[in-house]
């Protein structure tokens, strides 16, 4: 046995290879399809290059401008830091209320979107409504609400509220759809109402995920709220817009630094809180 194995392993290998089927060959049709797909991707990229008026040469031609801009940004001017801090607080306030209202509205909408709780004829239209809230960007909602309630942070709050409700309802309903149905049946078996089934059977199961999602949306809303001001939705974005338009780059730089520090600090705090709930 041992002798025959050591005698000629190469021969044994060859005979084994002879019985193996031929290695697979990619058919020509498949190769053609791949080629067409690659050509399509290139065509889309070329088309969009023209549509987006891409012109890297501008960066090079206007390098002087870029250099000036860079230099100005490198010496931030914190003279008015108290104004910026005040604006940053306003931005945070917009995010807090935008998220809070969205969570309050998102809970019932999220439950009504969940197909294991709500009947289809309710879940379907509510989902489409939430899709619409989500599909439209906060900035667009801000423009709409500015014409309704005027320039300022309240328009920003409303914009965040509507968009975030769409997002939160989706996240919350996905959590509800992943629950264990048994505890809910336990509540149903005692003769509880449908609302009581949700409160005692569903909510305790999804609460940690809901809290985590709400905090995550708060983080993103702080980032969104800094932008809202640019269209007139209040907060630090408004001030930033003014300084940039007035070519006060050192001040704009100071504002950006304050935004970056605040957002990073909040992210760190919020993430550490979220970790406790999952």
């Amino acid at each position: 046995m041992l002798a025959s194995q050591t005698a000629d392993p190469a021969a044994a290998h060859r005979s084994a290879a002879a019985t193996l089927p031929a290695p697979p060959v990619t058919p020509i049709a498949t190769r053609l399809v791949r080629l067409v797909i690659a050509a399509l991707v290139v065509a889309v990229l070329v088309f969009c290059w023209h549509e987006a008026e891409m012109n890297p040469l501008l960066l090079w031609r206007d390098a002087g401008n870029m250099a000036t801009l860079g230099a100005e940004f490198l010496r931030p001017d914190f003279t008015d830091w108290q104004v910026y801090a005040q604006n940053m607080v306003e931005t945070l306030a917009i995010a807090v209320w935008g998220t809070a209202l969205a969570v309050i509205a998102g809970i019932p909408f999220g439950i009504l979107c969940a197909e294991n709780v709500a009947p289809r004829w309710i879940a379907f239209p509510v989902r489409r409504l939430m899709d619409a809230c989500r599909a439209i960007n906060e900035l667009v909602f801000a423009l709409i609400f500015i014409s309704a309630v005027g320039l300022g942070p309240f328009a920003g709050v409303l914009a965040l509220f509507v968009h975030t409700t769409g997002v939160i309802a989706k996240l919350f309903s996905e959590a509800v759809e992943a629950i264990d149905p048994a505890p809910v049946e336990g509540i149903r078996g005692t003769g509880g109402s449908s609302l009581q089934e949700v409160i005692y059977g569903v909510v305790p199961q999804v609460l940690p995920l809901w809290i985590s999602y709400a905090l995550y949306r708060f983080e993103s809303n702080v980032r969104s709220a800094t932008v809202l001001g640019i269209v007139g939705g209040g907060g630090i974005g408004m001030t930033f817009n003014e300084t940039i338009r007035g070519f006060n780059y050192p001040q704009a730089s100071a504002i950006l630094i304050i935004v970056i520090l605040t957002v990073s600090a909040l992210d760190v705090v919020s993430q550490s809180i979220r970790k406790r709930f999952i």
Partner: protein
Amino acid sequence: MAAALELDRVTKSYGAMRAVDDVSLSIAPGERVALIGASGSGKSTLIRIASGLALADRGVGPAAVRSFGVPVQAGGRLAGEVRRARRHIGLVFQQFALVGRLSVMTNVLVGVLGRIGRLRGTLGLFNADERRTALAALAEVGIAVHAGKKARQLSGGQQQRVAIARALVQGAKLVLADEPIASLDPKSAKRVMDTLVTMSRDHGIALVVSLHQVDYATAYFDRVIAMNAGRVVFDGPASRITASFLTELYGASAEELILPSQFQPSATPAATERAGLVSAS
């Protein structure tokens, strides 16, 4: 007095498979009945239909289910009074069906939801009297000391006794238990069966327990209903259940039901496992 549970020609299909096939039965108030059968014989489906958690097929027989005269379902539709019927039907599940993140106390208090005001129940404003009742029920099943813990911190046997306490607080007159001991170790299983039967005896609660261990059925119950392929194949005194009778009823699949002491030793791992289970209990 109306029967604790009455099924009139109930059929339930899943696709082409008839999980419950034209079953009629009646359980008297205070009666204790074991529902036996191999896995897939329709025991769980029957219990889900009896509690209105599953609906019978439409257009196949009257398919009526009543508990103490209150309709649960008929003709494949839930009765309008199903919530009233559920109030006096306590349910015990194989996987306990407790809300793990809520306290043991809250899980038991949920039992009063059916009979207190809708708003008070929804807001969770249980009064001192109801809390005392809950604690008394927990003491009765022997786990009052764990009242403040989260349900998921308890062992399987303890969780099952929480579910029994919930049925007690509910004031159930009929308890349906679907494989209550199938997920438990032998010692906990015996404890849970003792608790169920004591509860039934002390409070005059009718009890239907589905089991696949025949030794428990004959030890704890006077009446046994045996199911096979969705049909009731035997309904009578537990004393008639013997190894040879089970083999007659179930053929080869009787092996799953018969205790190894009655059955000729078999080399299958499942049988060996059951042998350990039975000797330990």
